[in-house]
């Protein structure tokens, strides 16, 4: 039972990351119809917003020691963070909570990145064949990740969670189970809550605002909306920006769980496409549902008991793809796909 509960939590946690990225991707891919291979790069840039902010906060005043030397022979440098120098303890707290600050930082950055990408590049590719979109966005993804590599190197850069959220809590005891059976890291619970809020926010935005209504109408029938005299292009730019922000936030919040590195975008890219397509093209709910479904199934597949049940076969190696195949064979358009979107 406790093992089961733990894997549900793990699944929800993994799923919330998948769902967030897939939500961003499906806004671009499932609704604007652009095969965006640079989507992983957006996730990565989001994560590196945290790295940048953290290193800004910990930007240090360097004084070179006159007498002491490092063990490898160069003069010793003494580092003091400016933030701490200027603000004292408050500065230290700021550094500690830099992940949250970086969310505020990531929103404008991602908005700019997203809008620039759409206006500067993607806009010209709406009517081009998917093949061209693949090539241009793949090229863009490579360039973006290489730039990050040139600046930050290839090694993962650890981003600690704020001290208050480091460690884990005993959920089992809270639910009246035996102590120390279901212990779960606090940050992962926060991530889950965070993603629930963001997902809810995006849905509410599209459901209850006029803007969202127009966008949804545009997804359904772009031409008619255009004929009604509504500038759908501008809304689509805004959509792209929104998608970039959602994805970037997913990346920024994920950094304490996964130390960011320059190729993390590519690592997630294929998975996101699978999630979106399994959810069904053109369906936001489908993408979110598929994200959580695959996350939970992936967690269960990694349980030793499951592997033993399957006579030692490492089902966790293939579970995502296996589930994708089964779902797509049983349901032709994924979980909730709309007819006619990206079907030819």
């Amino acid at each position: 039972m406790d093992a089961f509960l733990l894997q549900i939590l793990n699944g929800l946690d993994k799923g919330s990351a998948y769902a967030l990225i897939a939500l961003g991707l499906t806004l671009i891919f499932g609704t604007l119809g652009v095969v965006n291979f640079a989507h992983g790069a957006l996730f990565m840039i989001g994560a590196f917003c945290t790295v940048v902010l953290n290193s800004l906060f910990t930007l240090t005043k360097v004084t070179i020691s006159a007498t002491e030397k490092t063990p490898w022979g160069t003069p010793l440098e003494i580092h003091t963070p400016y933030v701490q120098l200027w603000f004292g303890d408050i500065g230290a707290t700021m550094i500690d909570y830099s992940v949250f600050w970086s969310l505020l930082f990531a929103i404008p950055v991602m908005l700019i990145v997203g809008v620039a990408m759409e206006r500067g590049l993607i806009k010209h590719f709406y009517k081009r064949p998917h093949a061209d979109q693949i090539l241009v966005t793949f090229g863009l993804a490579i360039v973006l990740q290489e730039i990050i590599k040139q600046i930050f190197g290839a090694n993962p850069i650890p981003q600690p969670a704020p001290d208050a959220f480091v460690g884990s809590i005993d959920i089992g005891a809270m639910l009246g189970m035996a102590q120390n059976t279901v212990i779960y890291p606090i940050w992962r619970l926060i991530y889950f809550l965070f993603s629930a809020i963001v997902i809810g926010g995006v849905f509410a935005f599209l459901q209850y605002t006029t803007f969202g209504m127009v966008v949804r109408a545009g997804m359904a029938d772009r031409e008619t909306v255009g004929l009604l005299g509504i500038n759908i292009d501008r809304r689509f730019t805004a959509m792209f920006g929104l998608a970039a922000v959602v994805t970037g936030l997913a990346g920024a919040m994920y950094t304490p769980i996964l130390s960011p590195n320059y190729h993390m975008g590519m690592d997630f890219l294929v998975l996101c496409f699978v999630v979106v397509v399994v959810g069904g093209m053109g369906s936001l709910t489908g993408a979110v549902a598929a994200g959580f479904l695959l996350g939970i199934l992936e967690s269960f597949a990694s349980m030793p008991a499951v592997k033993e049940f399957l006579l030692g076969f490492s089902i966790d190696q293939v579970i995502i793809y296996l589930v994708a195949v089964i779902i797509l064979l049983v349901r032709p358009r994924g979980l909730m796909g709309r007819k006619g979107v990206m079907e030819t």
Partner: protein
Amino acid sequence: MSNYKLNRRKFLKGSTVLGAGLVAPTIFTRSASAYTNEPGKGSVVLGFNVPQSGPYADEGADELRAYKLAVKHLNGEGDGGMMSTFSSQALNGTGILGRKVEYVTGDTQTKSDAARASARAMIEKDGAIMITGGSSSGVAIAVQSLCQDAGIIFMAGLTHSNDTTGKDKKANGFRHFFNAYMSAQALAPVLVEHYGADRKAYHLTADYTWGWTQEASMIQATEALGWKTVKTVRTPLSATDFSSYIAPVTNSGADVLILNHYGSNMVNSLTNAVQFGLKNKMVNGKQFEIVVPLYSRLMAQGAGDAVKGIFGSTNWHWSLKDAGSKAFVDSFGKEYGRPPSQAAQTCYAQTLLYADACQRAGSFNPCDVGAALEGFEFDGLGNGKTLYRAADHQCFKDVLVVKGKENPTSDFDLLEVVQITPVEKVIYEPDNPMFAGGSLGKCNPGV
């Protein structure tokens, strides 16, 4: 570059069967050289094949720094580094056998295909006489067998799998780095000393060849000293989030978690394990412990605070105080403003060892160089007394057991050496079951 060809043994026989006119003009003259890529009078080309893209790009960059430094020293520039402390004084700063050392570089991408393509370009296009480098066992084994076929010496870079000098060993391949078995033999006694002999271990293992040899080695070494193995779980290479593998550990009854992971797998699994509070847990009345059998400084950097107090092993560390290490760290630090990594030290040492073997053999012929390396005993390259064993081309030297430092003073000062396990404790017979199967074959000079 002189005329050469990789292999023509069966050509004449075959041409009578098919008629050679079909394929190419029959101007296959017997080349004058005695072995592949025999260097001319002026210079000799070495091939540095390191990961420059992909997850190990930083490790590759450090390897490349070390190679460039080694070339400088061989050509008599700079302060000479470990050349002055090396027990064999055959090298004199005039290149190798009087020829200036030049080099070419390539990108392995940490993929066996790309690594072999890059190595073949070095052999076929640039006339490299020796290939070295790499940051994973799959690549090392792939390039090693290529060099065997082509008649080139391969000086392995970072490769830790038992197979490299075990079932996939090759006569033209040489490994300076230690291996999974030696890690386990060095680590187990220290673990027992610190954590007691009554421990139950849970293994998380990267699901590929290196992971398996590491797991088998650790199980054997720890069980011999009284530990029990509760469970071994394999994790996919592509995993980025290990929570679903870590979570079951808490209730398994185990009180030690051994992470047979490397690279970003290790960074993520260790970070996850610490997040799940495993470091502060009490099980069976004992403090729960985590062990990472193979450490590298770059990984420690990636894992951040999570490495504090965690035991592991490493081939070399810049904080060593012997004359060789100090000379190398000094020289490297002056050149690049940072201390070298263990990969850099291995690559530097391999280059010097190769150059020295040529010098002693008086020839670049791979068979002569191989013979000069086989059974060669040396000192002063940072690892103390070392033997290049003839039977499997593995170096035997002391192994460092290290621990994540509690109060690091810089980005580079993350590990502290707990114990230097003497070579007698980690050496094994060449027919040890973990290394059995496969044979060196005969050295191949090409042509």
